């Protein structure tokens, strides 16, 4: 019994926190400030606890699996949620339903944890639903805004659709092979047409969640409509979790069909990078801008996934997502601070920001440079390792397209930098008062962006997790 508890510890911790929050909600006597402090503390404890007692194990007849690598992936998600609780403190303090917000968010996180640990497709499907439905409710959290309900509606419809596709794929797979267990499937896969069809359906479902082109259309609208905290949860935590699962599914379950999915990954990666970049060029709203840029980032993650090398592909993707958590959250954090201070979300409104808000400007600058992959920020290392992993397949045309896409993306990131640092504005956004928690969150992100790259043992650590398996 105690063994089960240690194996399932991260899920149990999270469930515990959700219950604590429920009880607090029943008591209902606390002010938002106090409540937020308690939540931040709990999340911090949860994050730190994630680093202890991690080993390779499985439970419930391999339905649930864990390993140091999976535990680390969960820790990255924990870190992201903790940062979200810090960065959007301003908005949390104002919101009426703080407890509900975190209960929903942590439920979604719990779903992602189970998803990461799932060992067969039944578990996989259930946890994916758990990870999705609460997020749709979260998207609707700006109750007064019509656009927020629209976002929730789009989110729920598109995820229901993709779940349908996923189920269809799973049932074909089951029909052909007679099993849904990850461990037994690879031996039964031979690349027959019907199996390829199943793979395509599964792939499309993942593509929906990761907003890979051509399944990306919901992304920008949902991002724009949702509150900042939810947008960043969607674009960072949710994407990160799905990317982790995607890579392990492809590498472990569909390993025998590598040639089939390699081509799919390559074509979709190129499309995703190009479309994401081209659409990002013209965006004015900072949320939509970050939405399209994150689509392009997913294209890069696919380059790493295409390497089909567990020793290089997996660590480079995990490493990139760790960096992506810091960079994207920092960008969202700055945008949210400015939005809650001035109500402005347009890039043109950022003109002259450096004159009034140097701290926010520098954080935004290093976050965007990191997303663009410019040294000394960590994004440089992240992108380079993804490309190096991808290049191991010796498909240089693909790598060249990816490298050239970095230039396009630099162009639009520089557009924001230019607004902030160079453009003149007689009436810039006034000096924003930054909540101390937000400031702490931004500082953590900033340090993370700089240090994750330069301090090489973080990458070594990720690789060492792999070798202990």
């Amino acid at each position, binding site marked *: 019994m105690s063994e089960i508890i240690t194996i399932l510890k991260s899920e149990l911790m999270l469930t515990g926190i959700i219950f604590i929050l429920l009880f607090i909600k029943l008591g209902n006597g606390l002010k938002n400030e106090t409540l937020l402090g308690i939540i931040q503390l709990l999340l911090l404890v949860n994050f730190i606890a994630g680093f202890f007692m991690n080993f390779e194990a499985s439970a419930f007849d391999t339905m649930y699996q864990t390993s140091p690598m999976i535990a680390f992936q969960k820790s990255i998600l924990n870190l992201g949620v903790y940062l979200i609780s810090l960065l959007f403190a301003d908005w949390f303090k104002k919101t009426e339903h703080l407890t509900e917000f975190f209960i929903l968010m942590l439920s979604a996180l719990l779903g992602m944890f189970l998803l990461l640990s799932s060992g067969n497709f039944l578990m996989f499907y259930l946890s994916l639903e758990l990870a999705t439905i609460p997020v749709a409710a979260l998207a609707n959290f700006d109750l007064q805004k019509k656009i927020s309900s629209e976002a929730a509606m789009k989110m729920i419809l598109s995820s229901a659709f993709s779940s349908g596709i996923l189920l269809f794929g799973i049932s074909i797979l089951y029909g052909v092979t007679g099993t849904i267990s990850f461990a037994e499937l690879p031996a039964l896969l031979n690349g027959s047409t019907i199996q390829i069809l199943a793979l395509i359906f599964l792939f499309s479902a993942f593509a929906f969640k990761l907003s890979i082109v051509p399944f990306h259309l919901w992304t920008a609208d949902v991002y724009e409509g949702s509150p900042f905290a939810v947008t960043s949860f969607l674009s960072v935590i949710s994407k990160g979790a799905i990317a982790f699962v995607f890579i392990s599914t492809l590498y472990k379950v569909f390993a025998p069909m590598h040639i089939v999915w390699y081509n799919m990954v390559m074509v979709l990666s190129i499309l995703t990078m190009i479309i994401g970049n081209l659409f990002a060029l013209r965006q004015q709203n900072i949320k939509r801008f970050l939405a399209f840029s994150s689509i392009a980032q997913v294209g890069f993650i696919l380059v790493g996934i295409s390497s089909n090398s567990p020793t290089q592909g997996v660590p480079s993707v995990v490493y990139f997502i760790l960096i992506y958590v810091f960079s994207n959250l920092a960008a969202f954090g700055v945008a949210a601070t400015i939005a809650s201070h001035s109500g402005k979300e347009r890039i043109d409104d950022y003109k002259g920001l450096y004159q009034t808000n140097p701290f926010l400007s520098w954080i935004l600058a290093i976050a965007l440079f990191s997303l663009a992959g*410019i040294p000394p920020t960590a994004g440089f290392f992240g992108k380079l390792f993804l490309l190096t992993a991808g290049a191991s397949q010796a498909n240089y045309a693909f*790598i060249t397209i990816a490298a050239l896409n970095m230039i396009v993306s*630099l162009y639009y990131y520089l557009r924001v930098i*230019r607004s902030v640092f160079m*453009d003149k504005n007689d009436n810039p956004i006034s000096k924003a008062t930054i909540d101390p928690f937000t400031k702490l969150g931004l500082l953590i992100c900033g340090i993370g962006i700089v240090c994750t790259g330069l301090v090489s043992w973080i990458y070594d650590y990720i690789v060492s997790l792999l070798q202990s398996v």
Partner: protein
Amino acid sequence: MNLLLLLLVPLVTALAVLLMQNKQQIRWAAFIGASIQLALAFGLYAAYRSARLAGDTAAFLFEKKYNWFPDWNISLHFGVDGIAIAMILLTSFVVIAGVLVSWNVEKMTKEFYFLLILLSFGAYGFFISLDLFILFFFLEIAVIPKYLLIGIWGSGKKEYAANKLALMLMGGSALVLVGLLGTYFGGTGKTFDLLQLSAIHIPVATQMICFPLLFVGFGVFTALFPFHTWVPDGHSSAPTAGSMFLAGISMKLGGYGCLRVATYIMPDGAKEYANIIIVLSSIAILYGAFATMMQKDLKYINAYSSVSHCGFVLLGIGMLTKTAITGSVMQMVSHGLMTALFFAVIGMIYERTHTRQVNEMGGLLKVMPFISTVLFIVGLCSLGLPGLSGFVAEMTVFVGSWENADAFHRIATIAACMSIVVTAVYILRAVGQTAMGPLKAGYANLTDARWNEKLAAIILIVGILAIGIAPFWLNDLIKPGAEIIIQKIQAVR
């Protein structure tokens, strides 16, 4: 001597600049930091000489290797040869001059100096790297400072120029990146280490793909025709110190990369593509010179002439003889000093006359004797007057080129030689119109150079004269480095 000092000093200087309270302190902090860099560069040169005199024949001296991302076989591997030391000396000269001429920058002084020092950090790191990954890292690290320096402190259509420069250089780096990845997987060792890569023979098929990628990628930095278009816009829009750094240091990163990375580790590729390099660089030399003739703006004149002068760097590499490669490195040093000085003088003139149009100026020698004299010196250096560095460097390239006896190389050499005449035309015209003739109205009250400007000019002139009058020390410094590159090329023959 520990090469990490070369990285540490700029880093500490940059931090010190950030901590300073007022503008005066910032300037002095930057100046002291730049002086230490200069002293360090000379110390390095002295240490290198004594090591060589003591009989150390290793290709790279002061080697240090620290593990960094061992999983990818990446290490912080540093080491220098004569070529690298020549570039480091150049960098330290330009940095101190750049700091001095920026003494009067009032707008966001702290940020300005911080970015300037960061740029020098990238350059030093680039020149001492023996691992291609960190070399690439340092190459790219300079993108942010360059972009912001032009965009914030520049003049004219600065946003356009900053964007164009950042994107084109990024495009160059993208090509370099693909080339490096090809080398990493195409060579047998899965390594980025320059020494290991130079020891093995990279498969010819890989070289045929990766050499052009690397050479063109680095070539973008050093204005390889037809990728030179960022040069005029970038240089003319940048603030004075920014132009000095761009033309004096940043363009040299490309030349150094072409030589050290592309040519050194891929001799087969270099031989195969040498003729294309020669054609392109000859076009750049002539095109740059003729384009300069049409310019009216002093900064554009120097920017286009930089395209022409940097053509000699690539021409020397393309000729693949020891003398030509030595000359090409000398040209990098010489052009770096000369163009930095030229931009510094233009900055001084512009600050006083508020115009850079040649035809709006005249007779400045009467009111600004010091500045005008410096303008003469730098102009004469640019057109290749014996006794100044430009003559020595270009002459060495020509002599080296002439060693190739076939008609194609002869024609290219002669074509390149002809550019000197064109250079003389535009330089004499520009300098003459600016400094001589009757003094234009309104310029009578202009003042001459201040102490900081004088010091900056003198430092650079000392460098130019040291090469021009006594070229042997530079020659001795570079030759062993050129020798090992040529040995690899001859092994192919």
